[in-house]
Every structure is written in C-alpha cells, then in structure tokens.
C-alpha cells in the first residue's frame, strides 16, 4: 500500500504535519493500526536512530522525527482502543533527570525514542530526588528506571538514587540505567551498581532492550 510507505518516509523525514493525514488515509484504505506502528513507524525511527549513531543527523532532526511519529500515534491510539485492548507495550520505563539537575533535552529525547520504540514511558521530570524515582517505579510497576545527569555535581545523586532502588523492595526486580554527559559507564555500572549505561538516547533504547531480553 502506497500510504504505508509514505508514512515511513514522512516519519523518517520528520514531516509532522503530513503524518496524521497519511495515517488516516492508510486506515481508510483498510490498513491494520498495529501493523502501521510495528512495520512502518518503528522501522522508520530505527532508521532515524541509525542515522543519528552514524552522525548523519543530530538531536534536532531526531526530535522532529519522533514528534512526527507521535502525531501519527495520536491518530492511531483511539482506533486501537476502540478495537479493544490498548497498544502492545514492550515494557514500562520511568525516566527522570537526577536531583540538582534541570537539564531536560537529552532526557526528553529518550522519552520520545522509547515511546517511538513501543515502550510505555513515565516521565517524572527534572531535579528528581531518589525517593520520587522509587515511588514512580513502584506505582507504575516499571521494568526499568532511567536517570539522566548532565552535571558532574550530580554524581552523588546518581549514586544515591541507584542505592535507594537497589536497597528497596524493587532491588533486583527493576533494572536501573544511567546516561547523560556527566556519567561514565565505569562510574554508573562498576562503582554504583547500575545495570546499564548509555552515552545518548539511541544507545539507551538499545541498552534497555538488551536488559529486557528484547533484542
């Protein structure tokens, strides 16, 4: 179906204004909403992620593409719900920026990328204290907690957050990953005991999938 290929193209190119109309046209032509997501939109974002990792595109273009995909998802969501049963989710991820840090661009990009990859994401914002990470993970029965830290002054908060989760009733059940300019793999994993580390949003999606055995 020509519409489906056009959806993939429009998401890849980040043509947000075109995507909803194309999705509607595909639905009108009888396309299956879940298939639109799984076979066209998610592969489009995979391609965008690959271009990002190859340094062919950068954060802005990836955000634009992710927003274009979300515009399409907004059209599909009510259709999926009307068909009974919401979208299938790969898992639930709680995402936030650690205490003392107000940076949100990288963290928000991760939110978009995870959603675009089929995860349910709980975005708990910036400047999040450890207990709030823990609470959100418990309330939402999260599979993964992801934390972002862009300031070197955030290291103690990264350590405290990981420790709070590991020592709680969720320890061993919830995977914890860290990312952001200030956090190294050595610090996060070897020193603090995180389950994973990624330098950027695209890498984080791959790490999370690996941790959940989805790759």
């Amino acid at each position: 179906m020509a519409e489906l290929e056009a959806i993939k193209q429009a998401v890849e190119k980040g043509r947000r204004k075109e995507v909803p109309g194309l999705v509607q046209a595909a639905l009108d032509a009888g396309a299956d909403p879940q298939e639109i997501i799984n076979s066209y939109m998610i592969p489009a974002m995979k391609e965008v992620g690959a271009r990002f990792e190859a340094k062919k595109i950068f954060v802005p273009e990836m955000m634009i593409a992710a927003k274009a995909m979300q515009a399409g998802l907004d059209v599909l969501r009510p259709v999926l719900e009307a068909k009974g049963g919401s979208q299938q989710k790969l898992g639930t991820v709680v995402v936030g920026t650690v205490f003392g840090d107000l940076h949100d661009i990288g963290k928000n990009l991760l939110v978009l990328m995870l959603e675009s990859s089929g995860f349910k994401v709980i975005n708990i914002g910036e400047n999040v204290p450890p207990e709030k990470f823990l609470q959100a993970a418990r309330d939402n029965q999260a599979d993964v907690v992801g934390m972002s830290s862009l300031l070197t002054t955030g290291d103690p908060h990264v350590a405290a957050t990981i420790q709070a989760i590991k020592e709680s009733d969720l320890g061993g059940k919830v995977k914890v990953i860290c990312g952001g300019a200030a956090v190294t793999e050595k610090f996060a994993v070897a020193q603090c005991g995180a389950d994973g580390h990624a330098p950027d949003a695209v890498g984080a999606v791959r790490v999370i999938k690996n941790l959940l055995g989805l790759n």
Partner: protein
Amino acid sequence: MAAEPEMVVFEPSGRRVPADARASLLELARRAGVALASTCGGKGQCGKCRVQVSSGRALGPAAEDGLHLACQTRLDGGGVVTVPAASQLQQHQILATGHQTALELDPALRLHRLQVPPPDLAAVRADQERLLAELRRAEPEAAAEIDFPLPLLAALPSALAAEEGRVSLALSQGQRVRGLAPGWGSRCLGLAVDLGTTTVVAYLLDLESGQLLAVQAQMNPQVSWGEDVISRIGFCQGQPGGLALLQGQAVAGINQLAQACCAQAGADPVQIYECVLVGNTAMHHILLGLDPGGLARAPYAPVASQAQEVRAADLGLTLAPEASLYALPIKAGFVGADAVAAALAVGAQDADQPTLLLDLGTNGELVLAAPERLLCCSTAAGPAFEGGHISCGMRGAAGAVERVRLDPATLEPELSVIGGGPPLGLCGSGLVSAVAGLLAAGVLTPRGAFADDRRSPRLRQGAQGREFLLAPAGQAGGQDLVLTAKDVSELQLAKAAIQAGVSIMLAEMGLERVERVLLAGAFGNYLQPADAVRLGLLPGAQEAAIQGVGNAAGAGALKALASLGQRRLAEDIAQGMDYLELSAHPHFQDYFVESLSFPEPAV
C-alpha cells in the same frame, strides 16, 4: 560669633554653595549639584560651560557677549551665577555600548560643602551641632533628626581641623550622614555594578554632575568554580563555606573594578558613597550571602525578591565606610535584577506597541512589553550563543569570528575577526551568521542538515559528520576552522528554546507578532538583525524592527544609581510584571520541537 560664609547661588536652579575663591565656577557648580556642560573637562577649550556672572566680582575675562567660561573663572566672594539653557546639562547622554539613555539626576545622596565656624567661648556648641547648623543653611530640607553614624562622628574633629573648618558632608535623603571628608575637594561618586555569571561590569558615575567617569569590566572571578549558574549553586550547596567563598570572590571582583574605575577617573574608592547592583538571581543572591539553593529545584523560589539596601562594608566592599548598596528587585528564580534593570533602561513600562526585550545568553531572559501589560519568562538556551559546545567555538574575544559573509554562488566566506588577526574560533554571532549564510545559499536545509546536492571543496566529511571549511589551518590559528553539522544542531537547540519562549509569550498575550525587538547584551549587540530573521529566532519580526541596545542591564543600573525616582520605577516594574513559567507550560515541548527547524527559504 563667626561670620557666616558668603554663598554662591546658581540660577535658575537656586542651588547654593559656600564661596571659594580658589575654585573655578565649574567646580563650584559641580559642588552645588548643578549639571554644567563641559566636554573638554575644564581646560577652557570647548566653550560649553558659558555662564553669566549676574552679581559678584568675577576673577577672569569675559567674552564679547559678556559670558564667562565657568572653568576659567573664579568668584571673589559670594554672588549669583546664571546658567543659560545652552550650558545646562539636565539630561546627560551616556553611551553604554551603542545605546543612548537619558540619565535623570536625582541621586540618593548629596555632598554638601560646609564652612563650619570654630567653637565660640560666648556660646559653646558641639562640633556636631555647628556642623548640622551649617548643613541646614545649605540644605533647608534636611530632616529634623539626622542620623550620624558614630565612626563618622569620631572622625569629625580631625576633619574640621584639617582645612580651617571646611568639610564635605555626604547626606542621604536628607537624613543620614553617609560620609565626611576634610576640605571641599572631595567628590560624590556612585558605582553601578552589573554582576553577570561570566562578566562583571562597573560604571563610575559622578552623582553631582551625572557624568559617567569610567567603565571597567572583567571576568567574574567565580568562573573558576563553575562556568554556569547551576554549577555555582551546586558548589554553594555541596561545600561547607561554599557560599561564603563565592560571595568573597564576587566582592573581590567588584572591589577591583571600583579601584580600576577610580584609577581611570583620578578618584578614590572612599569617594564612592552609593553602589547599585544588578545581576541574575543567582549572582544577586550569592553577593548578598543569600542561599541560592532554591533556584536549583522546582519551583525555583528565590529567598527574597524585593529591592535590598545594605551597608556596603558589611558585604566586604571597600568603598566609603558608610556607603550603601542598593540591589534592584528580582522577578523570579531565572528572571533577575538584570532583567528588571534592562526593562527599566529601555522604558518597557511605557511601550506603545508590542516590544520584545531579549537578553540572549546561556539563560535567555525575555520581557514582552505591550500597552497595559508586561510579561516575562526565562528559557534555557544552553551555551551555543556564547560559543559553548561548538567544535571551533570561543567567547567573543580577540580572534573570534564575529561575522561571516558568504558568497551564495562560490561559497567563499569573508570573515570579520574581533581584533583583526587570524580567525581562531567562532563566537555566538559568528556562528549565527555562518549558519544564516549557509541557509541562504541553500547549503543547509531548513532541517539543519547539509544539502546532499551541493558540491564544494569546502564541504567535506569530518570526524563529527559533515562540515564546512571556513578557513584552512594555514589562515586560521593552526587548525582548520570548520562549522560542523553538530554545531548547527547545537544552534538549533538554542534557537528553539528562545523561539518557543517568544511564541508562547505572544500566544499568552494574544498577539500575532512583535513590532519592535530590542536585543540586549553583548551577543545581542553583534547579532545582525537579518541573520536573526533568517534563523527564524523571532517569529514574525521584521528585520527593520530589530535593534541592539547594548548592555541594557548596566544602563538600567546607572539609571537607578542616578535617580531615586528610577528606583521606584524599577520596583513598580518588578511588581507589576507577570511571570510565565515555561517549564510548567503544557505545550512547551511542542513549541520547542516546532521551533527546531529554520524557516523555509523565501520563494
């Protein structure tokens, strides 16, 4: 009884000072707080300070029209001097990097030159009493109760003894003695300070003439403890004594600038009786010793937002011992006294059409002024506008490319370099103009990518993706000067933060577009309006409507230093302005992503 000293009266203001045959009329006018024009500084060359000696005996020649040059004329005893309108300087023009502001003079204190008679055996009066009696003669509106700090009282006998009873007394608002100096040669100076995260600027103002005597700037010494506001706040919170350390650094920086300004003006910091401070909320808090910790966590509440007035020496400032420091009010955690001062400087409260005042930095402060309403917000642009996170980025210092002109056909760039030497890096305005030029030439797409179909020897693959060669190593500082696709993306993020803030403010006010855009700060001054339009930074703004206004925060601090009325106005602005918290805005992310692209080229 000692004879009362003769007075020299200046008309039409009626201001008066004790006669002094040793001082020129220009000097006497200065002592009286009469603003006389003089551009040569009293050398008898400019002819601006012409006055009429209406009564009294003039020492010095008159010109053919009967007028005297005040700087070349003295008066033997008392008399009346009339200042023609042409020689009056009521509204002093100060030039704060390109932006002219009329300075209204109504300072917090005045210096009174007094001739205090010696004690009289027939009717013994205390030194303080005789001094205050003279003061009341010179200043009939002085308060009944005058507050006289004990340390100044202690210095009174020696001051009276030094020059036969001639003293200079600084009195603030008619009721508090701020300073005392022997003789009449002392000056009444004020210091306006713009304490920026990166740069501190100080302006030395003569509070009697309204003349700007010196401007000095230096790096904020706190930079060694973190480049940005958040890391400084982190230091204050994380280290015992961290706040005191950073406060001490800021104070030391201001003291150095006061010294440098005084050296430039041939003055002494002990003649500075009044200091006015502006700065972002974090810098303001740290200088005043207030914990800035609340600014690092939502909802970013400051400790105090109202104007503060403190004894400067209590903060460690080495000015006149009893000098006062007035800190302008702040609006919010990230809309500081600097934004309030900038709004004051440009007269935002009187805007007759939608006017946007924009201070672009790591944290952009935006004020949208319309008749009947002032709205402000802050938006985190990141360091790209200051050359940060850019592969060949640098601050706007010597060697920085401040402007790039690109031939759209040949793609040959012409670089304007600060200081004229070889290009060492790109500062914010250079980055903006390079990207604007590449967009106009079609080398960059509206998405910020290098177009696949353009071929040029300057377009190549680098370690960080595709890049454009601005200058080869041989012509630059030893390494290729390039603009990478990643650099373009950093600029997109910074631009989108500003553009989204502007768009949301316009929507909030129900406006389609702004009619006037005032760009404050160093970056705003160098940013070419055409480039800002090309980037889509200011939605809907016409190129002709955009202008740089220089260091508006500093200009506002000067206004508040020169005039109490302007301080009240600043307080009204801070009080009446509405604040918009962008991080709590439900659609900020949508506006932000929408703003990442550059405008499509005009057809």
